[in-house]
């Protein structure tokens, strides 16, 4: 955060200047919070998914019929849906930070950011549509 600070090590005053607009700062704070909330959700839902792969939640094996039957149950459909959408959101914000740090050309940065967001939206949409369809065909 911009402002006047005193260094804990050398006691000299430091002036921190931020060139972000107020709306950009607000968005950044929002991203910071969402990234952490989604992280905690992924820890819980990801734990469930790992347990599922280990066969602890009722999935017998990885054959087509059992996997389809497993994800057609409403509770499992809801959990995998919530997990994939949260993963897409968390991933989108994470890739954005990487792009901000490594792609310095402003135009290229904006284009790559939009492409990343589009790809992540498509991933989330594809997962949700797939899960709904599994429920319908099972």
């Amino acid at each position: 955060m911009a402002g006047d600070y005193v260094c804990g090590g050398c006691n000299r005053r430091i002036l921190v200047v931020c060139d972000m607009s107020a709306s950009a700062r607000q968005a950044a704070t929002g991203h910071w919070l969402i990234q952490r909330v989604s992280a905690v959700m992924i820890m819980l839902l990801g734990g469930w998914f790992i347990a599922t792969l280990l066969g602890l939640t009722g999935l017998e094996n990885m054959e087509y019929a059992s996997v389809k039957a497993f994800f057609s149950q409403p509770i499992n459909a809801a959990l995998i849906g919530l997990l994939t959408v949260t993963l897409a959101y968390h991933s989108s914000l994470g890739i954005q930070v990487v792009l901000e740090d490594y792609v310095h050309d402003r135009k290229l940065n904006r284009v790559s950011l939009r492409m990343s967001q589009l790809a992540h939206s498509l991933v989330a949409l594809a997962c949700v549509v797939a899960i709904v369809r599994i429920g319908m065909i099972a």
Partner: protein
Amino acid sequence: MVLSILHRSTGVALAIGLLMLTVWLVLIATDSSAYERFVALINTVFGHILMVGWTFAFFLHFANGVRHLVWDLGHGFEKHQADRSAWLAITFAVAATAAFWWCVT
């Protein structure tokens, strides 16, 4: 120090892994023959290397994510604490990956 760049690289690797998870779900929703071909592809040596890599990336990103959350709460900033939690995260990731594959195979 090393974990900072590893957090990023595992994050990017996991973004690609999410794409694989998406393909998997879409194929479950499509038909059994496409799904079986995808599973056969995973059951190659190259496929197994990728899967082990992704599980390790998941557990390391997970453990280091916990470190970040603890830092956000204002704990563990001292050099010796950060060093110890870094080793703990790496140890956890290696152990969890080994345990996971020991259980599924």
